[in-house]
């Protein structure tokens, strides 16, 4: 890295771009209405699709009659599963049948429906209005079966089975670790605390709903599927299998994306059905999910049940953790992650930032008659962090210790640390972030304010959460989850043209994370180029080599390393080319300001344009061992347990007696994601993540009635917090660089979401301390808070 100097910066400054909050490349088009989102695409002769969806939660399909649909003015065609004859979407884990039961998710329901909203038929019409008219005319016959709507239903003796092949409605059941002697540890511990937590089902809720535009390109002999997905290559793989095409005959292109947060990192049935309809009709077909379908029938997440005990000694040192986790994964496994995504994440990672000497966990995924689940920002970590942090609070309370001090005694401080879960944690600032966060709230006088408020009969609470987040999962780490499809690596190509500008491909897929800026910063530094000369290309399976998209906070760690390596290779070629001209060893050269410089003569330089001229237009002048052109490809993978970002969140809340409202008075986040490529972007990720974490803690829940009918079908019922509910957040940075990512960066995409529920819930419980009530389930609604405060009032 010492071979580059003096990259030009947009504001005329000198020095590296990495570490600077440069203005985003994405902004100008998005601010002027020139972005191109999937619903902005219009192709000649394009038709519009909508889906006939199940109105019952569980039942056999006895008839699907679309005759009347086809007669609706404007309707062009309507297709059932039988009409389209597509392969199923099936995700696998490499585990024995007692640990994992696969489910085949048909693109359109065939003879069975398993949730309200399940797609049964696709209606294609002249415009979106006519398509909706068509839906009204569908006649669907059901033999209704009793719905399985919750974990208790699913696990009950003699329960109705959602999938005949899955006894006790259990898709995943793994018991892990079981440290020898753990029962004795619990039996002899000074203090054993227990937390039972249920967390509400949530919707990741990208503001842009899902959607796709598909058409057949005769000239390329290709299906072109433009779809808003975080995982373009995985969509291509599944589409080619379902449609029985060679994979090269499917091109997936991702336009600008209006968020994803995990909901779009799995393959959707509707995008495949839209493609199938386009092939069948020989015309472009567009499908845009409406908000009701997005709220009820897309991929959901987070409905989990934890039953966890922790053993402590008298000084508050944790001795063991014994956990039972059940995740309600809905009707089907998602591709490629499967229904194991939530329970396996929780089981593998729960000990987190603490030195837990003994650990036992059982993780299960149950299937129910609800829309299926996908990874959602944080994946189980917002939940298990909340449980572990509640355990620490409870233990401190029982032992009469300060909860922050109790955490301090247990945080991992000696790195690298290999935990009881077999994971090796790379260096972080666990203790430092807690200390700084606590100090910030102390210095601001919140503890005094709390004392005054309590004396005045008000309910102020202070809460913390400490956590780390594994980012940069490589193939090795994903293989440990025993996924049959193992994500991990990323491949990048850097290509310089005759004008000295570079095009960089990445397998990652930005949907708000600013990769067009941050990855360009990395490349510009590596090559000593002006940022404006670097263009990032993503989300086109014909332009980009097979990649894994964006999820699990992998993009800057893994994708950023791949672009850095590829740029480094290209830089070497430029230096070799210049060195050959000068007839000096290539090691005696440096890159900077769009030129190659020679060490022994700073005045002598060759510009990239001059070198590109030789590489492309005068190849006869190239050294014999050098290939024409200026391209370089590199891949990056992580062969250890990944890198852990960490943070502490500190929250002050006030509970309002009359309304039960939880008002957040102060929010401080001290985070460490290693080298922040663009600090302002990192802060944006933190704040946005925290807003989603608060949403889960206090507001959002996908609800169902006893028949399995979703009851939160609009934003009137699914309460997305606004600027009135989300507070300003102070973000403080610590920096413990990652030792093995090429830039020192760790992932930063999910931490905000992970830390917020625990800190908020701890603050609420701190405020409730005088009442003796403890709340462990989320969302904590005003009704719950009101009732808790009411109880005290009645008592006094």
């Amino acid at each position, binding site marked *: 890295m010492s071979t580059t100097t003096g990259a030009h910066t947009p504001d005329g400054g000198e020095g590296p771009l990495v570490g600077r909050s440069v203005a985003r490349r994405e902004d*100008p088009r998005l601010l*002027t209405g020139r972005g191109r989102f999937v619903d902005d695409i219009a192709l000649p002769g394009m038709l519009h699709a909508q889906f006939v969806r199940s109105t019952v939660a569980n039942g056999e399909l006895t008839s699907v009659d679309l005759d009347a649909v086809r007669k609706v003015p404007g309707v062009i065609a309507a297709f059932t599963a039988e009409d389209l004859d597509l392969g199923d979407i099936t995700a696998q884990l490499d585990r024995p049948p007692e640990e994992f039961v696969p489910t085949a998710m048909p693109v359109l329901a065939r003879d069975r429906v398993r949730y309200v909203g399940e797609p049964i038929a696709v209606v294609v019409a002249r415009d979106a209005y006519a398509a909706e008219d068509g839906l009204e005319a569908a006649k669907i016959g059901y033999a209704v079966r009793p719905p399985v709507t919750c974990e208790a239903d699913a696990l009950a003796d003699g329960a109705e089975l959602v999938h005949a092949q899955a006894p006790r409605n259990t898709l995943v059941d793994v018991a892990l670790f079981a440290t020898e002697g753990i029962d004795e540890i619990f039996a002899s511990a000074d203090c054993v605390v227990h937390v039972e937590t249920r967390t509400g089902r949530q919707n990741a809720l990208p503001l842009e709903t899902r959607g796709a535009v598909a058409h057949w390109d005769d000239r390329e002999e290709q299906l072109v599927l433009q779809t808003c997905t975080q995982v373009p290559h995985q969509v291509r793989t599944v589409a080619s299998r379902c449609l029985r095409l060679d994979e090269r005959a499917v091109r997936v292109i991702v336009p600008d994306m209006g968020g994803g947060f995990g909901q779009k990192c799995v393959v959707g049935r509707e995008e495949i059905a839209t493609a199938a309809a386009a092939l069948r009709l020989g015309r472009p077909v567009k499908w845009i999910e409406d908000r009701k379908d997005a709220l009820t029938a897309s991929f959901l997440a987070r409905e989990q049940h934890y039953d966890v005990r922790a053993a402590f000694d008298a000084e508050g040192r944790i001795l063991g953790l014994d956990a039972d986790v059940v995740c309600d994964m809905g009707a089907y496994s998602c591709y490629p992650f499967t229904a194991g995504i939530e329970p396996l994440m929780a089981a593998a990672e729960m000990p987190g930032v603490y030195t837990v000497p003994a650990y036992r966990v059982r993780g299960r995924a149950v299937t129910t008659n609800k829309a299926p689940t996908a990874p959602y920002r944080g994946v189980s970590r917002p939940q298990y962090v909340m449980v572990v942090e509640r355990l620490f609070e409870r233990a401190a309370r029982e032992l009469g210790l300060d909860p922050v001090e109790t955490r301090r005694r247990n945080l991992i401080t000696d790195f690298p640390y290999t935990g009881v879960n077999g994971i090796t944690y790379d260096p972080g600032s666990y203790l430092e972030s807690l200390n700084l966060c606590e100090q910030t709230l102390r210095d601001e006088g919140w503890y005094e304010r709390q004392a005054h408020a309590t004396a005045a009969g008000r309910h102020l609470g202070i809460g913390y959460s400490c956590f780390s987040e594994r980012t940069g999962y490589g193939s090795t780490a994903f293989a440990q989850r025993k996924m049959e499809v193992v994500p991990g690596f990323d491949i990048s190509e850097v290509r310089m043209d005759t004008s000295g500008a570079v095009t960089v491909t990445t397998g990652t897929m930005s949907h708000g*994370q600013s990769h067009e800026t941050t990855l360009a910063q990395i490349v510009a530094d590596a090559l000593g180029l002006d940022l404006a000369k670097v263009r990032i290309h993503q989300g086109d399976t014909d332009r980009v080599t097979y990649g894994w998209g964006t999820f699990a906070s992998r993009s800057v760690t893994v994708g950023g390393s791949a672009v850095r390596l590829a740029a480094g290779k290209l830089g070497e070629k430029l230096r070799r080319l210049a060195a050959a001209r000068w007839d000096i060893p290539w090691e005696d050269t440096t890159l900077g300001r769009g030129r190659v410089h020679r060490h022994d003569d700073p005045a002598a330089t060759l510009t990239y344009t001059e070198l590109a001229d030789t590489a492309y237009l005068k190849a006869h002048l190239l050294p014999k061992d050098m290939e024409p052109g200026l391209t370089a490809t590199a891949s990056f993978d992580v062969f250890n347990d990944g890198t852990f970002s960490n943070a502490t969140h500190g929250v002050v809340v006030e509970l309002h007696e009359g309304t039960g409202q939880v008002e957040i008075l102060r929010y401080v986040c001290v985070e460490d994601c290693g080298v922040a490529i663009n600090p302002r972007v990192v802060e944006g990720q933190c704040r946005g993540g925290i807003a989603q974490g608060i949403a889960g803690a206090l507001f959002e829940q996908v609800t169902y009635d006893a028949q399995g009918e979703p009851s939160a079908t609009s934003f009137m019922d699914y309460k997305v917090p606004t600027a009135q509910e989300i507070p300003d957040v102070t973000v403080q940075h610590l920096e413990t660089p990652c030792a093995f990512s090429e830039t020192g960066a760790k992932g930063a995409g999910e931490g905000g979401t992970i830390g917020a529920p625990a800190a908020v819930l701890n603050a609420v419980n701190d405020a409730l301390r005088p009442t003796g009530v403890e709340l462990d389930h989320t969302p904590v609604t005003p009704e719950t808070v009101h009732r808790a405060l009411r109880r005290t009032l009645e008592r006094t």
Partner: protein
Amino acid sequence: MTETPIDPAIDPAAERQLLALDVNGTAYEVLCESRRTLVDVLRHDLRLTGTHVGCEHGICGACTVLVDGRPARACLMFAAQAEGARIRTVESLSGDDDGRQLSDLQQAFRDHHGLQCGFCTPGFLMLAEGFLAERPDADRAEIRELVAANLCRCTGYQSIVDAIESCATARRAKEATEATATDETPEAAEATGEER
């Protein structure tokens, strides 16, 4: 404007009406069904796709446009209801002819990282544009209340509030400077006024 190929299944005469709309200062004639919403006409008939659709029930505000200067949900209006009104969309914000030069409000969003995925952004921009014209003196609390009218899933709102607040502050400072200039040299102020 005509629709893309009309299928034989459609009766081309079916219940369509000719609407005259004034959008961003341009007069348009649109032939559409009476049930067609303003946002669909803007996006799909006039191809002004900067205005987005997030919920179609008036909560998220991604479709916010200005109707006679006031923020309105374009998903809750029929296009026919917009006849006779002056409609402004995000495409009109830029000061220059080709719409690429950022206005002070757009620039403030960029400076403060007021957008991530950018899907809600046009709605927030139009909300703020209409609001600041009416309440140039708004303080942070009022701005936060305004921002609570729309939904953003990426930013946590703080940077949006920051952006609007900084734009308002800068506009006030500029106005104060100009007012001072007016006191001193009336001719100079006139020139500035023309520029604006």
